[in-house]
């Protein structure tokens, strides 16, 4: 009985084993990091959880409910939101619209209501806007509210993507390399934001990350993967000192 569990997960593409018999559990409210060399299968784990890929074997459980058979667009209804390694924002839309899209799973009135722009629809839009503004405040995005994403610098885009994921009011947040491409200052800010997300919003975070200083700062536990397999799992210092992990990173 755990909050979130991956059980005996395998993912094969023909002869390629992206994930081999991987199992781990995440406690509610913790920040759990997945590290490993390139091609270790970290993002594939995320893609299995969010149903981009169907695993060859094994299952994924959230609150003991199997989510391995959900359609891809229903995953967010269970309270799982994610960001992408190579930002997948809606380029032509403004930051605000991106956030409102994050709230897509909350209905904003019937189609007919929308066509007539009924009072009920307007109230729903107001409510979503207020919620989006909360997140804009939380992540300091107010200067960019009405700027199209296409004209924002990389670091801000990363934050917008995080904000969009938060807008869906998740209980489990999957961050795929949130610090890649950020400068040291932005990375420090990100560490604070992740702290806020964990402590103030009470959201459980699983993140794939290469920046060990960030992982050391925010993660409660770490899973190290290599070639689709688990190398080590546990507190950061322990995993960092693990001989297999050192070997995988530095070579033998």
């Amino acid at each position: 009985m755990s909050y979130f569990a991956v059980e005996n997960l395998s993912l094969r593409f023909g002869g390629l084993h992206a994930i081999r018999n991987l199992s781990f559990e995440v406690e509610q409210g913790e920040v759990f990091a997945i590290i490993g060399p390139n091609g270790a299968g970290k993002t594939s784990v995320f893609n299995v959880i969010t149903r981009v890929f169907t695993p060859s074997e094994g299952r994924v459980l959230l609150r003991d409910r199997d989510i391995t058979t959900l359609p891809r667009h229903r995953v967010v209804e269970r309270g799982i939101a994610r960001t992408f390694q190579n930002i997948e924002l809606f380029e032509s839309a403004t930051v605000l619209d991106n956030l409102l899209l994050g709230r897509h799973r909350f209905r904003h009135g019937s189609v007919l209501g929308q066509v007539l722009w009924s009072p009920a629809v307007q109230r729903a839009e107001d409510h979503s806007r207020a919620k989006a503004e909360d997140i804009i405040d939380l992540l300091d995005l107010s200067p960019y509210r009405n700027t199209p994403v296409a004209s924002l610098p990389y670091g801000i885009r990363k934050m917008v993507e995080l904000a969009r994921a938060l807008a869906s009011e998740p209980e489990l947040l999957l961050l795929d390399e949130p610090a890649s491409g950020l400068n040291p200052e932005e990375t420090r800010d990100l560490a604070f934001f992740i702290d806020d997300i964990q402590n103030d919003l009470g959201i459980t975070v699983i993140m794939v990350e290469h920046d060990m200083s960030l992982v050391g700062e925010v993660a409660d536990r770490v899973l190290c993967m290599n070639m689709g397999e688990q190398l080590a799992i546990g507190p950061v210092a322990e995993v960092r000192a693990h001989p297999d992990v050192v070997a995988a990173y530095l070579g033998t």
Partner: protein
Amino acid sequence: MRFPYDTSYRDSRKLLRYRSDWLAYGILLALLIAAPWILPRFYVGELTYLFIMSVASLGLMLLIGFTGQLSFGHAAFVAIGCYVHVWLLGHGVPLVASLLCAGLFTALVGLLIGLPAIRVSGLHLAMVTLAFSIIVEQVIGRWKDVTGGFTGLTVPRPLLFGFDLGGQRQLYFLCLVVLVLVLLALVNLLRGHTGRAFTAIRDSEAAAQSLGIWTAGYKVFAFAISAGVTGVAGALLAHHVQYVTPEGFGLLLSLELVMMVVIGGLGSLRGAILGAIFISLLPVAISALKPILPTRIGSQFGLEIFVFGLMLALFILFEPAGLNGRWRKLKSLTDYFPLYRKDTFRRGKTYMRSERYR
């Protein structure tokens, strides 16, 4: 200079935000209402045609400009809307009901054609729709009992509560009213939940799905609405031409519609209408210019198609954002006059994007 200053969330969503907007659109509406009494008969007819094409162009814009699905076969939806309307009118259905039914039926056909769109996109979808429009043209040509075949069919007079709307001014106002209603409906749909989902699908399907947008459903829905709106345009077109033959709904019409959308500026309803104005008035402009041109050029066969192609090429090369992009640049020049920066509209660099999740 004008700085946006919102005092409530609703301010930012208003369609006509400033007093000057009310004034501008009020004047436009007044001019359009007065037009049939000011303009010569020929131009009233041209404006009516322009309204009809605007409706069709709005329908196609929803599909291409907002959801990013390409269709080269929208003439087929115009044709279906047209023939269903004529058939219903012929069987004694009242005008308004018949218009709505034509739209609904075309939407249903669009739904069916939209189903392959879940699987194919881009050029492949363009081919599917192209093939569909050829099939529809041929079916209409051969199905003589209902459509009159290639010889054509006379359109019954449009009667509304006993009034004949077939006269030039009456038809002008019928088309204007339909255009305004369609425009308002689409504006509302696109500024809310559904419109956001459409643009999300266009920009990133992977992210759209991760946020709970049922991409397959929305794609087919967009196809249905687009077809329905285009079908209504087809029904109106029947009254404009008064005698319908399948040749009127060939590839050239599809191509014209696509050009309206592209030249107008993808992703904007204003663009759809600007594009429709441009493409519908181009032949008028060309024929007006013909007497001035040297006879060797003016009498060339296919001059119109040549100019169409040239315009499309020039727009794609020099103004990919289309007429709407031009409009926005002019507007921001006047709004921010001393502080206008030319680079505001320069396209930002697109960072690395993966297509792996499709």
